[in-house]
C-alpha cells in the first residue's frame, strides 16, 4: 500500500508538468461555464437557481457515462476526434499547424461513402477495405497539397489549409449532387453502403455494445502506432527534429522539405481516416450540406492533449463525452446544448492563455530547478541584449 502511494506520487511528479495546465484549463472552464449558467438563471421563468450549475454537470456526466449505451455513445463520438486529434498533433510535432483537418476529413469522408456506395453489393472483404483506403488516401492527398506548397514555395500551411477547407466543402457538395448522387431518396444524398459499411465489434457477453464499430478499434490502435512512429522510429525523430529546430535538422543532414511534405501527408491521412471511419461506421451517407465540427474540435483535442497521443486519446474522450452528454443535460437541466460549445471554447481559451492557468494554480514552467532559472535568465539576457 505504501509502495503504491509512493509510486503514485512519483508518477504524478513526472506527469505534472505535462498535465497540470490542461487539467487546470478544464477546471477553470467548468468554473466559467458555471458562472454563465448561474447568470443565465436570472433570465428564466423559474428565477435565480444556485443549484443549476451542478445540475448541468450532473446531467452531462450522467448523459455521457450513466449506462452502457451512454458510454458507447461517448466512445463513438470520441472516435473521429481521436484520429483528428492525432492528425493535428502529428502536425504540431513536425512544427506544422494543420488547420486543414476539416477539409481532409470531408474529402476522405465523401470519397469513402461515394466509393463505398458504388461497391455496396461487392463482397464485404473487398468493398469495406477499398472504401476505407480510398477515403484515407484522398485525405492524405488533401494534406499533401499544402505540404508540397510549403516545401516548394514556402506558402504558409495555415493559409493554404484554410483555403483547401473551403475547396473541400465545395467539392463535397459537387460530388454529392453530381457523381455520387443516388436516386430514390426524398433528398439529395449518397447511396446506401451495403457491404461497404464498417461492421460492429463482436459483443459475446451481450452487453449491448452494438454501436461500437470497427472504426473505434482502428482509432484506439492508431494511438500506440502514432506514438511508436513519432518516438521510436528514425523518421519520427526526423519529423520531431524539423518541428523543434529546422536549422539543426538541416545541419544533421535531414531533408526538411521532404519531411514537411511527409508530415502534412500523414496528418491528412489520419484526418481522411477519421472522415472515412465516421461515415462508414456511423453516419452511413452524406448530404450536400454535410456539417461537422470534427476538424475544429480536433485542434482543441490536440492542444488539450499537448500533442501527446495518450493525451489526445483522453482529450478526445472528454470532448466526446461532452457531446454525448449534452442531450441528456438539456432534458434534465433545461440548459441548451450550446453550453457544451461554451465549455469547449473556454478550455481552448485557457490553453492558449496558459499564463492565467499557471497563475491561478501556481504551476511552474515545465522545467525544474537551477537549470531552468539559468536558461531563463540567459534567454532573458539575450532578449535584453538584442
Amino acid at each position, binding site marked *: 500500500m505504501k509502495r503504491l502511494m509512493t509510486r503514485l506520487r512519483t508518477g504524478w511528479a513526472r506527469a505534472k508538468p505535462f498535465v497540470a495546465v490542461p487539467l487546470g484549463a478544464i477546471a477553470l472552464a467548468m468554473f466559467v461555464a458555471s458562472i454563465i449558467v448561474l447568470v443565465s438563471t436570472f433570465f428564466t421563468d423559474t428565477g435565480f437557481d444556485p443549484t443549476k450549475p451542478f445540475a448541468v454537470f450532473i446531467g452531462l456526466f450522467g448523459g455521457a457515462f450513466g449506462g452502457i449505451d451512454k458510454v458507447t455513445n461517448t466512445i463513438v463520438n470520441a472516435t473521429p476526434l481521436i484520429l483528428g486529434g492525432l492528425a493535428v498533433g502529428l502536425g504540431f510535432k513536425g512544427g506544422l499547424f494543420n488547420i486543414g483537418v476539416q477539409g481532409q476529413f470531408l474529402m476522405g469522408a465523401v470519397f469513402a461513402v461515394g466509393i463505398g456506395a458504388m461497391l455496396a453489393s461487392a463482397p464485404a472483404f473487398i468493398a469495406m477495405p477499398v472504401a476505407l483506403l480510398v477515403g484515407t488516401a484522398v485525405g492524405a492527398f488533401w494534406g499533401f497539397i499544402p505540404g508540397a506548397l510549403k516545401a516548394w514555395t514556402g506558402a504558409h500551411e495555415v493559409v493554404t489549409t484554410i483555403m483547401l477547407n473551403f475547396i473541400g466543402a465545395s467539392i463535397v457538395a459537387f460530388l454529392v449532387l453530381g457523381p455520387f448522387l443516388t436516386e430514390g431518396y426524398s433528398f439529395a444524398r449518397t447511396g446506401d453502403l451495403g457491404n461497404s459499411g464498417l461492421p460492429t465489434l463482436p459483443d459475446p457477453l451481450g452487453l449491448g455494445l452494438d454501436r461500437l464499430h470497427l472504426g473505434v478499434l482502428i482509432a484506439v490502435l492508431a494511438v500506440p502506432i502514432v506514438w511508436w512512429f513519432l518516438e521510436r522510429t528514425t523518421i519520427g525523430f526526423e519529423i520531431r527534429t524539423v518541428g523543434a529546430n529546422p536549422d539543426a535538422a538541416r545541419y544533421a543532414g535531414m531533408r526538411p522539405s521532404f519531411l514537411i511534405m511527409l508530415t502534412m501527408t500523414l496528418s491528412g491521412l489520419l484526418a481522411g481516416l477519421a472522415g472515412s471511419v465516421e461515415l462508414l461506421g456511423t453516419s452511413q451517407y452524406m448530404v450536400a450540406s454535410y456539417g461537422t465540427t470534427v476538424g475544429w474540435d480536433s485542434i482543441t483535442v490536440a492542444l488539450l492533449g499537448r500533442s501527446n497521443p495518450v493525451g489526445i486519446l483522453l482529450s478526445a474522450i472528454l470532448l466526446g463525452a461532452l457531446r454525448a452528454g449534452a442531450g441528456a443535460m438539456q432534458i434534465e437541466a433545461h440548459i441548451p446544448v450550446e453550453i457544451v460549445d461554451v465549455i469547449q471554447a473556454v478550455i481552448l481559451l485557457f490553453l492558449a492563455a496558459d499564463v492565467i492557468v499557471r497563475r491561478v494554480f501556481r504551476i511552474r514552467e515545465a522545467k525544474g530547478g537551477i537549470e531552468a532559472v*539559468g536558461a531563463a535568465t540567459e534567454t532573458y539576457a539575450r532578449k535584453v541584449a538584442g
Partner: protein
Amino acid sequence: MTEQAPALEMHGITKRYPGVVANDGIDLDLRSGEIHALLGENGAGKTTLMNILYGLASPDEGEIRLDGAAVTIADPADAIARGIGMVHQHFMLVPVMTVAENIMLGEESIRGRIFVDGAEASRRIRALAEQFGLAVDPDARIDTLSVGVQQRVEILKALYRDARILVLDEPTAVLTPSETEEIFGILRRLVGEGHSIIFISHKLNEVMAIADRITVIRRGRVVGSRLPGETSEEELAELMVGREVQLTVDRGESHPAEPILRVGDLHVRDDRGHETVSRVSFEIRAGEILGIAGVAGNGQEELVQALTGLRKPVAGSISIAGTDLTGASSRRVAEAGLSHVPGDRHRFGLVLAFPIADNLVLTSYYRAPFARGIARDDAAISAWAEDEVARFDIRTPSATALAGTLSGGNQQKVIVAREFSRDPKVLVLDQPTRGLDVGSAEFIHRQTIAKRDAGTAVLLISAELDEVLELSDRIGVMFRGELVAIVDAESASREEIGLLMATGGREARPDPLGRAG
C-alpha cells in the same frame, strides 16, 4: 572634503532565484574616474549584478548608493536618469537609421511641437564626439559602419543621456586588436574627464591592460579584488575558476601527413545574393590545424556553410581525401568523414527541447547501432549517451535531461562529444569556445589537439585571435571574403595578423571615420 564618496557603491547585494543564489552578498564600489574590471566566468553572477544596477532586476537584499546617497533603481529609464549607461555586448542600433537618429531615439530634440530637430542633435553629437575623441559621422547610416564604430555610437548614446557611470559588457568581444587599442584609448579619455567605468570581461590580458582595479566573482560571491600591478594572469584565472588553470595550450609538435581537405577557387553567395566568399583556395593535411582569423562577417560563416553542405557554392571545388564533394548535401559530406561544430550552437548544433541523448545522436541516429531499419534502438542510444556524458564530463544529472537545461559550456561539450566521437577525417570548428568559461575552453582545446595528433585535418575558425594563435599550425586570414594570406604559425606575429585582419594587407589606410565597404 578629503574623502569623496565613491560614484557607485553596491553593498551586500543578494539575489536569489528558486534553488540558486545568483548574487550572494556582493560588495562593489566604483570610484569616480576609475576603470573597475569585473571578471568572472559565465554564470558567475556578473550579468545579474549589472541587471540589478540597470534596474532590470531588483535585489532581495543589499543597497545601492550613488555618490553616497542610497537609491532604489526601478527600471532602466530610472537608471539612465540617474546617470548610468549600459553598452551591451550585442549592439542595440537600428541599422537603417543614421548615427544621429539612433543616438537621439527616445530623446529627440524637438523643434516647435512636432518636428524632430536633427540639426540640433547632430550638433550636440559632434560636440560630444570631439570632446571624447570618438570619431563618428552623425549622418552616416549604421549599416555602413564597422563594428568598432558602431560601438562608439553605443558609447555616444550613453554619453548623450549624460551617463557618468558606464557599464561595458564584454566590449572587445567583436573587435580587432587595433580596434581594441582604440577603444581603450577612448575609455582612458572618458575616465580622464571624470566618468567612471565598469568593464566586464573574461579576457585576462585586457583586464590587466585597462583596469585600475579588478574584482573577481565566482558563483555569486566576490572572491577577490586586485590591483593589476600586484597580480598576474595566472592568479586571476585561478580566482575565477577556483582551481589552477593552464592558460596556454600545450600543443606539442604536429606531424602533418597527406592533404585531406582541398578547397579550390571557392566562390559562395550569402542569402541576399552577395558574393561573400571569393577565390578561396587552401588545403589541410592530416594531423594539422589550419586556423582562420578574421573579423566576424568577412565570409567565414558562408565558407563554413559551403564546406559542410549547408550552402551550395557558386563556383570552385571541395574534396575530402580525393572524393569530390562540391555542392554535396550535409549528409553526404558527413558520410565522407567531415564533422562540424557549428558557430551558432543554439541554431544549428542542438535541439534544446530534446534530451541530451537525442542530441548526442543527432548526426548518427539513422545508422547502426542506433537504428535497426526504421526503428530507433533506444537502449543503444541511452547506453552510448551515458558513456559520452561520462567521457566528456558533461555536467548533468542524467542523459535524459533536456539540452536546454545545460549551461553553455556543457551544451558545447555535447556537440563536441558528438562530433569528435565520429572519428572524423576533417573537423570544422567554428567558434568552438565562444562564450565558454576558461575551464570548458581549456577542455575543448585539449580535445582538439588530441584529434590533430590522431591524424584529423582540423579547420579552426575563430573571432578570438588568441585562440587561433595558440592552436593553429598555419594561420589564414579572411578579409572581405578572400583568404588574403596563409602564414606559418611559428613565424606569425600577433601584430602582423591583426593588421591583415584590419586591412587585408593592402596599403589602403582605414577610413578614419571607420566606414566599411
